């Protein structure tokens, strides 16, 4: 009795099974350790149309011949429009997350059509399990970047915009697969102390740890804040790279792990 009390009454109530003692993790397997996950930005790349997308498609097509890639695609302007409308209508973040999913799916489909001649295959999340089939036949899976949380999106700490968007979804794909690396292709050279589009005094940061970055508490960030939080608990992905996809060859350099863009590491 005294022994029980020490433990708390809930211990037995909730976890009565003996299995619990086996609930500890051994070395987590890397499912696709040679694969690189590349995210193509929605607003930063796709929304710029032909001028930004065509050269990247060319570069990707070349890279897809030599390397195993998984490509994810962001949302962008149409997501923002849908979010603005939904916020005005008083919609909860879970509904916004579902709306955002559609846009990133549209972009993934567009990019897939352009990459189809080179082996680009659109993968709905429901068939994520057969991704190996495509990779092993030399094809490149192309997935919408949004995580499948939708109505189950947690309410954000502030505001109505879902905290887990296409950067988070991309990072988590790399993490669960134990991928080689995760690269974010955007329209900035990497991380700045502020949004360089609005603040010309913003300075470039080529390399920074997650802890330092969180401590800086920057007003704006080139990557979703939630990614930094998740990186702290990551088992496989210890760094992410952000590169400017408007500069030809940057993605190739990043895939070769050369010093380009910004590296954020734990």
């Amino acid at each position, binding site marked *: 009795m005294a022994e029980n009390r020490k433990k*708390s009454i*809930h*211990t037995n109530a909730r976890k009565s*099974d003996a299995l619990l003692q086996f609930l500890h993790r051994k070395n987590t397997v890397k*499912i696709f350790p040679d694969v690189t996950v590349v995210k193509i930005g929605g607003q930063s790349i796709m929304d710029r149309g032909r001028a930004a997308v065509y050269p990247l498609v060319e570069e990707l097509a070349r890279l897809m011949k030599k390397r195993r890639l998984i490509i994810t695609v962001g949302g962008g302007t149409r997501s923002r429009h849908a979010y603005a409308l939904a916020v005005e209508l008083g919609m909860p973040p879970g509904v916004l997350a579902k709306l955002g999913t559609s846009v990133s799916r549209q972009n993934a489909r567009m990019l897939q059509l352009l990459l189809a001649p080179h082996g680009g295959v659109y993968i709905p999340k429901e068939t994520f399990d057969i991704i190996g089939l495509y990779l092993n036949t030399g094809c490149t899976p192309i997935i919408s970047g949004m995580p499948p*949380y939708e109505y*189950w999106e947690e309410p954000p700490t502030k505001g109505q915009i879902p905290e887990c968007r296409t950067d988070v979804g991309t990072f988590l794909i790399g993490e*669960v697969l134990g991928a080689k690396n995760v690269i974010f292709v955007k329209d900035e050279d990497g991380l700045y102390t502020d949004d360089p589009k609005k603040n010309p005094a913003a300075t470039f940061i080529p390399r920074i740890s997650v802890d330092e970055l969180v401590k800086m508490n920057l007003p704006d960030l080139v990557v979703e804040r939630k990614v930094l939080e998740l990186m702290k608990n990551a*088992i496989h992905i210890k760094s992410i790279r952000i590169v400017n996809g408007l500069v030809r060859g940057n993605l190739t350099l990043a895939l070769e792990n050369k010093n380009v863009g910004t590296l954020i590491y734990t």
Partner: protein
Amino acid sequence: MKESLVSKTVQQKTHQPRERRILPDANLLKIGGGSVIDRGKNAILPLIKTIGRLATRHRIIVATGGGIRERHTYAVGMDLGLPTGALAAIAEAAHEQNALLIQCLLAPYGGIRVTKDEFEKLPFFLASKAIPVIVAMPPYHYWEYPSQKEPLHGSDTGALTIAETFGMKRCILIKDIDGVYRPDHVSGAPQKPVKKITAKEMLSWSDDELPVERQMLQVLLKARNCKKVYIINGLKPQMLERVLQGKNAGTVITAHG
């Protein structure tokens, strides 16, 4: 339209303290997997009968937990070295089994199995006096947050998130305890569940002392619509009736008090 969604000013600007409630009359009842369903017929049948009877007067959506088969999945999966996201994706099967069992039992009262792709039809199901039965575990699947332990987003968290997103009237977790007990390490006095407690206080307890998922408490701290979670004992179905009537029963967990 070109604004950065990561910008703090945009986050602030979009704060909408009053969201529209999508299903304001609905009560979400989560039936625990390990605490109720795994106990079999003696625990389940009286509860089903009560839910069936109450559903004629209240709008009820039933969500089911995973229980022992979920934990077994985690134990085997972890031993095999599978990542957390894979565990979350695979565990769903145990939840679906429980949802199917509960739906079969609720069928005479109008129980129907509703998958996540059919949530937009919930108003129709509720208006036709059906009792939708859903899986409580959120579909984070391969996109579950990385951790050294089991998936963070379990069925308690999923139940609250759905009640929150749809602005439901109540989120009720049906377990096998009369409510939440404060950890009591010293006194020898018989323990009684508390009537009210805050998520903030409970977050300071150890995992063993928590009768609910830690992540659910984190979500409760951020909730705007569903700011209370009721904990009641499914082995005493009369507690459910009292909660639905707006009377005191079990424990109410609030965010800050």
